[in-house]
């Protein structure tokens, strides 16, 4: 059975071109870039090249790029370093829909005397900017707000927020793990101080990430024990990963416009067809400001895990914000923050596409979706026409 992969916000396929670029770095060019001999030393040039490729995609200077092991490390480092740099300010602002890599770190800092403000979102998943403006004050040391939400794909007005934060003299960090490679960025034109990205979300391998730190932003070294990454992040470089990420960034940069249009077209086709053919389904998230590849649809009166398992039978990979899939008993924190009723949150399914998806795959899914939903609704004691009441 063919796998139809619609879970690209979870992870992506490594591009063949990326793998090709990485291949020689395992058995042939395996030297340590810190070595004195030519064999090792030549590897340094490859890392420098990758750094440039990343910088071009982000629109920044290569010196502003620090390679890390993943997006989570970048988030941890950014948040902890930012608050350490200005110990007299004690307030951190973030959102209720952040990824745990940010939210959990902020909540941990709460245990160390920091005040944490979590900005809410509306039913469409849009940030409450009035609340944000109200909370942003002179005591604020750091604002960390994601560029785009992983569950709904909703994009936040990061440039505007960064300006406001900059005016208040606080540090602004954004977790752009879902945005990089999907929407064009130009960091030289923004007031963003720090940005996290993750290789495996844009067709590079797992185990490599980036923390962008703009020139002039104070950042204490966050891994000690070596001079790598200008002494800020010690540890022998993940050379194949870094080189692969460089290539992936180059590919994203060259193709971002041409590729995202077809991806958005496929996503729209899938979304419209499902919403049309499955009664009592609804879209979660702002349609206007959204990543081109993501759609999040709730199916009332049925449960997400059951949908995923039936999709899985056709080889279709997706994900769900339902309680049962997360191992907890409540739906995802994003669905709850948006105020999606539990009846719909339990049955929410996210499809996230990539440039490798085809129209046939979309058509195949469109064909089978109504059957899957109907089948589960036939099992369900709740019926639509009675507004969710029992039969």
């Amino acid at each position, binding site marked *: 059975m063919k796998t139809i992969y619609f879970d690209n916000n979870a992870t992506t396929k490594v591009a063949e071109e990326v793998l090709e670029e990485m291949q020689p770095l395992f058995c042939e060019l395996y030297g340590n870039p810190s070595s004195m001999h030519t064999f090792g030393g030549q590897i340094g040039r490859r890392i420098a090249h990758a750094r440039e490729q990343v910088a071009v995609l982000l629109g920044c200077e290569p010196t502003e790029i620090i390679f890390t092991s993943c997006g989570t490390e970048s988030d941890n480092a950014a948040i902890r370093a930012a608050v350490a740099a200005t110990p007299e300010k004690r307030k951190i602002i973030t959102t*209720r829909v952040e990824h745990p890599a940010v939210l959990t770190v902020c*909540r941990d800092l*709460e*245990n160390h005397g920091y005040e944490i*403000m*979590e*900005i*809410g979102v509306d039913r469409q998943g849009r940030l*409450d900017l009035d*609340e944000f403006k109200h*909370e942003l004050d002179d005591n604020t040391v750091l604002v960390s707000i994601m560029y785009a939400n992983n569950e709904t794909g909703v994009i936040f007005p990061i440039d505007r927020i960064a300006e406001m934060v900059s005016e208040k003299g606080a540090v602004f960090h954004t977790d752009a793990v879902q945005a990089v490679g999907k929407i064009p960025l130009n960091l030289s034109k923004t007031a963003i101080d720090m940005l996290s990205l993750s290789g495996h979300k844009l067709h590079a391998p797992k185990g490599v990430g980036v923390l962008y730190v703009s020139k002039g932003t104070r950042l204490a070294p966050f891994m000690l024990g070596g001079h790598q990454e200008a002494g800020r992040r010690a540890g022998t470089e993940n050379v194949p990963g870094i080189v692969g990420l460089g290539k992936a960034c180059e590919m994203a940069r060259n193709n971002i416009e041409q590729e995202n249009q077809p991806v958005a077209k496929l996503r729209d086709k899938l979304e419209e067809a499902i919403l049309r053919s499955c009664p009592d389904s609804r879209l979660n998230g702002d349609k206007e400001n959204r990543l081109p590849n993501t759609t999040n649809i709730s199916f009332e*009166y*049925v*449960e*997400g*895990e*059951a949908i995923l*398992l*039936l999709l899985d*039978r056709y080889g279709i990979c997706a994900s769900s914000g*339902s*309680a*049962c*899939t997360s*191992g*907890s*008993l*409540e*739906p995802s924190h994003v669905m709850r923050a948006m*105020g999606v009723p*539990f*009846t719909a949150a*339990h049955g929410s399914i996210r499809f996230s596409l990539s440039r490798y998806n085809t129209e046939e795959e979309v058509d195949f899914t469109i064909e089978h979706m109504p059957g899957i939903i109907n089948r589960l609704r*036939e*099992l*369900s*004691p*709740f019926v639509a026409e009675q507004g*969710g009441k*029992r*039969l």
Partner: protein
Amino acid sequence: MWEYTDKVKDHFFNPHNVGEIEEPDGVGEVGSLACGDALKLTFKLDENGRIKEAKFKTFGCASAIATSSVLTELIKGKTIEEALKVTNRDIADYLGGLPEQKMHCSVMGREALEAAIENYRSGGKAKHELEGTIVCTCFGVTDVEIERVIRENDLTTVEQVTNYCKAGGGCGGCHGEIEKIIQKLQAGKPRHAPHKVPAKTSKLTNIQKIQLIQQTINEQIRPALRAHGGNIELIDVEGNKVIVAFRDMCAQCRMAEFTMKEVIEAKLHEFVSVELFVEEDKDTQDQPHTHRE
């Protein structure tokens, strides 16, 4: 992904006895849309008082559907008395086991069966009513139900109780009370020592005591409140009086007064000292909360 047995998958993909019996002898309905799963069981008896037919309708995950399907198979051919002996263990065992976090599905099956029998015995009038007093307000679970899953499945931790009947899986405010029920029922039995307990010294200096209180709030109490949009702040410690303030959702919650205080005291007794008692700081109570719903 969950590790489901082939039996679970088979009953999920090809469920038996789906539907609703017309003019049933007994109807049992448990769960709700909000809770994430619900089950409606109907059955009909033959002239000898044996269950001739049983059907189900279930909203929920794969294991909820599979356990419902198995339940209907298990009770067919049984008398009411025999059917009442079916436990959640029987259902889980029939499926070759369920993941721990999914055991509540098997309990839901057993509850639906009991509700249906209760309904039958009352001549089709009785709706299932909760027995006992509610302990977990998030999922509406009573002390009677919690005691039962502890006894029938020999549970020893709050986490297990949550896996089996959902109690404690929401805001976490009832963890203290569940712990008490476990202690009551499992008293005398050897227990697994809870890990990561900070060493309790016989004599704490004031500074040590305050640090330990803060640590206990940070590690044991706040994460549970946070899960539901609430928060707690340690204001002061005067002798054995621990003064705290509730924030966000907790501050608005009318349950705060009696449930939160008890839970926090229980945790502080467990990790710091049994002499401590909790008071809510009234001065900061009127502060505006920090987010809107």
